């Protein structure tokens, strides 16, 4: 069980607004996060990963406290080790496909399986600059999965994939999510994109101050 209650002030173009979320996510659940641009969806994921600190809040994951501003607990991103798929992919320009995965894990069998899952097994020695947008996005997903995270945070993870590839990949990911019992939060703008994958939704609205 993941229990999150956070408050974070956001600076936006037209002034300030507050990101306030109080929500529980069951183990192994897959939740779609949606809402208007600038409402704080990406910030919410980064707060969970430990990349941004909120002014107030508490995050507990399976009875382990990751964040509690009342008692000054704030675990580093390294200790939280969430899988994170960044909106801009954040691929390492100096590394090939295989090096991305080897940087994340030493398990060769798992790397081989991921490469097949993402259909990148014939491109192992390619650097990101030589991959298409869809291939780069798949690599970003595989790298996040490489650490076998308990919690996977995905920021617009399927935006660059063609419909056929998206459907196929989502089916494959469902199997992996279930197998590893991963709790997944997915930010998406596309209303129908995650049909059949998610079992819950979270709407983040923009509360102006």
């Amino acid at each position, binding site marked *: 069980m993941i229990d999150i209650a956070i408050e974070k002030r956001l600076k936006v173009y037209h002034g300030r607004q507050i990101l306030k979320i109080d929500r529980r996510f069951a183990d192994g659940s897959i939740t779609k996060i949606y809402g208007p641009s600038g409402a704080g969806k990406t910030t919410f994921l980064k707060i969970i990963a430990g990349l941004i600190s909120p002014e107030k809040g508490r995050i507990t994951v399976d009875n382990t406290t990751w964040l509690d501003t009342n008692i000054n607990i704030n675990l580093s991103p390294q200790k939280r080790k969430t899988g994170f798929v960044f909106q801009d992919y*954040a691929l390492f320009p100096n590394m090939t496909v295989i090096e991305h995965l080897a940087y994340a894990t030493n398990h060769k069998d798992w790397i081989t399986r991921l490469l097949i899952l993402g259909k990148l097994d014939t491109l192992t020695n390619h650097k990101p600059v030589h991959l298409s947008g869809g291939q780069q996005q798949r690599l970003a997903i595989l790298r996040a999965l490489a650490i076998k995270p308990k919690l996977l945070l995905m920021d617009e993870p399927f935006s660059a994939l063609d419909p056929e590839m998206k459907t196929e990949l989502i089916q494959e990911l469902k199997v992996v999510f279930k197998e590893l019992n991963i709790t997944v939060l997915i930010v998406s703008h596309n209303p129908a994109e995650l049909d059949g994958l998610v079992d819950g939704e979270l709407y983040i609205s923009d509360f102006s101050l």
Partner: protein
Amino acid sequence: MDLSPIWLTLKLAAITTLLLLIVGLPVAWWLSKGRSFFKTIIEAVITMPLVLPPSVLGFYLLLAFSPQHGLGKWLQNTFDIQFVFSFQGLVLASFIYSMPFMVGPIKSALQQLPASLAQASYTLGKTKWQTFKSILIPNIKPSLLTAIVLTFAHTLGEFGVVLMIGGNIPRVTRVASIAVYDSVERMDYAAANTYSLILFCITFVMVIGLFIFNKYQAKSPLE
């Protein structure tokens, strides 16, 4: 023909560049992350040698490390180290004088890398050091090489600051730029020409090499 000023200059430039690489990398990384008044002050201090006349810097270093006064006297009495009119004094002066050439390009390159690169590495459980070594440094190679070449070349050409703190002692502090000046003073234009030509050629080859390397590296997606 005494070539010792050339060797001394190359030795000084190599030691200074190596020391600045070791110190400059973490300093540039620290400066590239966030902003604070303290960081602004430190950055201004590091940048000062770019705008300060070298003789002014040399004069203050001469005062600070003179064995007759405060810090210089204490260093002499406690550690038996003398920075004035010695090779280590040249290294210290060059270190301070060339620091902006090492820190500046590396800091700018680190700032231009997307923040998400380091963040992605952290979420994979990697420490700051592992991220710095495996992700940040390999992706700023052209700027790193620029910093190294600029620092080396700039140290080769130092004159005012090394003359002030080191003087003109043969085989100890007489570097090539001082040897050129000294030769002209003695009307020995042939020696001055030889020293100048050697310095010109070394610097030219280094800068050409840098441009060729960086042109090739410009194919990197981050350039």
